[in-house]
């Protein structure tokens, strides 16, 4: 039904929706590693709740991707039975948690990206994507409030906390470039009014991030060309470990149910 308005190749739309879903799924899985290990109970709750929202987004998106594909793959089959090369998330999402500060830096960078992306995608000509984006956007606003509050506290905190989040920012910043580098798929979706122009998302993201970094007394690193392509299925070594853990049960006991 939602495919009717903009004429677009089902295979392309499938890949595009998977990309969005994989970013949420992989980041959600990463955040889940903090459960029971956070610096305080409140942060355990915070990170687990954000993870839950992200898994919720991933479920909606993977379900939709499976329907577009039309080969009987549901959310579970797509999450648990795809190999690393068939995952299309930008590789920022799979970067290790590091310390709490590094997790917060990664979170701010992706929360701000998702917020700007979803706010525009809420007007997508694909009705289903528009609905998922409009719903998710409301939750992501709270994610960003949480993560940016923490970044300001840590950046503008002690010399130790400042140094740690600045080095996390320097470490993770190069991976943000991939989020905004449009490839053929991004361009096609923007042309058809299904996804936003990434240049527009980038400008809005950049302004938002600058404001947060200024308040956090952190220095914005320079953009550098990147040589990785998670959006095409070329990942860092980290994704394999995430999938090994996440997919273990379904691989060992196919079709196991609760």
């Amino acid at each position: 039904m939602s495919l009717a308005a903009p004429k677009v190749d089902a295979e392309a739309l499938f890949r595009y929706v998977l990309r969005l879903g994989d970013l949420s799924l992989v980041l959600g899985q990463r955040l889940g590693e903090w459960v029971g290990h956070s610096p305080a109970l409140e942060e355990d709750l915070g990170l687990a709740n954000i993870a839950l929202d992200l898994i919720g987004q991933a479920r909606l998106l993977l379900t939709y991707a499976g329907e577009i594909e039309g080969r009987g793959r549901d959310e579970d089959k797509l999450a648990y039975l795809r190999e690393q090369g068939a995952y299309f998330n930008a590789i920022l999402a799979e970067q290790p948690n590091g310390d709490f500060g590094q997790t917060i830096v990664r979170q701010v960078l992706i929360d701000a990206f998702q917020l700007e992306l979803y706010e525009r995608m809420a007007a997508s000509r694909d009705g289903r994507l528009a609905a998922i984006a409009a719903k998710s956007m409301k939750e992501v606003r709270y994610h960003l409030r949480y993560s940016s509050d923490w970044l300001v506290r840590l950046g503008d905190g002690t010399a130790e906390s400042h140094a740690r989040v600045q080095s996390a920012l320097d470490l993770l910043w190069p991976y943000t470039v991939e989020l905004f580098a449009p490839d053929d798929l991004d361009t096609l979706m923007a042309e058809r009014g299904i996804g936003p122009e990434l240049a527009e998302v980038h400008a809005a993201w950049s302004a938002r991030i600058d404001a947060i970094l200024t308040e956090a007394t952190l220095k914005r690193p320079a953009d550098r060309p990147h040589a990785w392509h998670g959006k095409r299925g070329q990942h860092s070594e980290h994704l394999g470990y995430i999938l090994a853990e996440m997919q273990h049960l379904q691989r060992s006991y196919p079709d196991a149910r609760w």
Partner: protein
Amino acid sequence: MSAVIFRGEERVATARVAAAWQLLASVEDPEIPALSIVDLGLVRFVEVRPGGDLEVGLSPTYVGCPATEVIRRSVQDALRQGHVGNFKVTNVLSPAWSSDWISADGRRKLLEYGIVPPDQSVSNMRDVLRGTHPLACPRCQSLDTEMVSEFGSTPCKALHRCRACLEPFEYFKCI
């Protein structure tokens, strides 16, 4: 003649819809049993479809909320036990559920349960996110309260603390 038959069918359909609403009003939220799913504004519509199936539209509060599945099953059980005939339960995502849709009755029940109901309309989300105005403690009504955590025991709630009576309390977030 056909018009008369149509009106008769319509009466039966209306009665079925009313019965379904009554059954749905008895379905509790698994996390906040003081509230029904109707109080929370989760039931989007109850309609009889041309084929004779009753369709109930349900919205999730948060996309990852584990209670969503439980609520769906409770709704199916209630409708089955209430003998409303063939039915199906549909997930409604758009427009996205908002805390603005919690009924006045729902807000009162929340407060009685010890959870501060959402106190601002999400039509002005900027003000909501700035979050500068203090919440009144549900136990002692003091305004000397603070937020402890943005996220509480469920996705829909934040954790606060009253500095006057020293009791923690939960706040249902505006979304």
